[in-house]
């Protein structure tokens, strides 16, 4: 039984279909990348898994249980946590409060203090600036807070939507390094990215999403060598 199983989902915005019979699965402990260009449907897919949108057809199972009709909060309680595209921090709240909200769910609440220590160990800068208001942080720092907030929720499956978006190359390395560490600590990661090189390098497997359809899947190493991936996504 796969950890996360997405089965043949169709997703629409109003009358416009943007995801077409999409299936994928993630095993426990894996790091899986979903790569694809702008408008391919990556965010829509994550939003659907998180319950912010619903699929018209198909099914989503997590640890064997159907979650396609669950409320976002119930999906969080099951341990699927999304770090959304564009950080989406609580801009006027301090770093500390942002992280505290991350541990809002019942399953994360009890361990909040302990998890906070882990987050600070992983990203010491956040502790140095814990009282700073989120909106005053740089893009890279904001992304760190967004990831930290996600960890505070004690994810079983952590989904990251383009964490490298809009960051300078040196910061991108930091972010992927952090994701690497999170995965090494045993968290299952579903990573959505346009930075194909970095994301596939730290992934076990990958899916290529184009126009709302999975057009290719396989071990990350194999995708990195694939001619289509090379020309379309790596500019080689």
């Amino acid at each position: 039984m796969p950890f996360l199983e997405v089965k043949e989902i169709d997703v629409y915005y109003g009358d416009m279909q943007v995801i077409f019979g999409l299936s994928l699965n993630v095993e426990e402990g894996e790091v899986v990348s979903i790569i694809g260009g702008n408008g391919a449907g990556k965010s829509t897919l994550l939003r659907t898994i998180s319950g912010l949108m619903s699929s018209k057809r198909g099914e989503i199972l997590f640890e064997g249980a159907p979650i396609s009709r669950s409320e976002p909060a119930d999906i969080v309680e099951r341990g699927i946590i999304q770090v959304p595209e564009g950080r989406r921090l609580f801009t006027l709240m301090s770093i500390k409060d942002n992280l505290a909200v991350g541990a809002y769910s019942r399953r994360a609440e009890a361990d909040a203090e302990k998890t906070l220590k882990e987050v600070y160990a992983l990203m010491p800068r956040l502790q140095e600036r814990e009282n700073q208001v989120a909106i005053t942080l740089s893009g890279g720092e904001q992304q760190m807070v967004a990831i930290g907030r996600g960890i505070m929720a004690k994810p079983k499956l952590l989904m990251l939507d383009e964490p490298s978006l809009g960051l300078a190359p040196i910061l991108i390395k930091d972010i992927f390094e952090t994701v690497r560490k999170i995965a090494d600590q045993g968290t299952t990661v579903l990573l959505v990215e346009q930075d194909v090189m970095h994301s596939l390098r730290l992934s076990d497997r990958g899916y290529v999403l184009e126009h709302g359809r999975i057009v290719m899947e396989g071990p990350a190493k194999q995708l990195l060598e694939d001619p289509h991936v090379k020309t379309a996504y790596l500019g080689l």
Partner: protein
Amino acid sequence: MITILEDTINGILMGSIYGLMALGLTVIFGVLKVINFAHGSLLMVGMYVAYWAVQLTGLHPYLALILVVPVMYLFGYYLQDIVIKPIYKAEKQVREPITVIIVTTGVWYILDNLSLLVFTPQYRSLPDNPLRGKMIEIGSMLISVPKLWGAVTAVLTAAAIYWFLQKTRMGRAIRATSLDREAASLMGIRQYSIYNITFGIGTAAAGVAGVTIVPFFNVFPTVGVLFDIKCFIIVVLGGLGSIGGAILGGIIIGIIESVGPQFMAATWTEAIVYGLFLIFLFVRPSGLFGVKYDW
């Protein structure tokens, strides 16, 4: 000179009570992004609950808080849950849902007319309550005791709500929802239950305001109309969603109202209040304490 000082002090006291009246409006707007046109009616309901609690038990008006706060909290909670939430859900994708505003207008009419039906248009007051007509003499100045109690209550209520929002788990969840409801729901926060709680808090605050005015003010079914426009002005002046801003906005209005008539006809002070409101709308729509950043 003394009269101006006296008027200023009494204006500050009454203004703080105005601020307390506006508190619920600003809290509800801050989180739900909806101007609650039923706010005056919530004040009215709060006044009636306070009035009857005191009238039937003969207790000190402020002891009515023990009853008014929970009753009004539950009233607001279920008003949002049963009447407003379904409309919200229907307009899920809309950021500032206009139909919700229309529904709150409907709630206003229904509550005012229900109260007309149940309580008749009769003016009611609490003539024997221990605060009525009491004054303190400071030098040659007379300061109203019930307004002083009201002002202290206003500041304490604002401080309590502020503390709750800043320091508690639920308060943080409410702030998070007000800043980004979708990101909040990705953290496991149930948006609609936050809306219920927020509406409950805002309504309870209106109830506290009701308690502070019944010792010196008549209660009647359309009494809310006297105050609701004032509340809207205060909230815009202080900054939509700002708790300190509501109290300060209230105080500004209170001072203009009480000191103004020294210099001009009372109708002019009203014109000044509205003028100030317009100027703020044009020049600084975010109010005194409103944040520049978009929520």
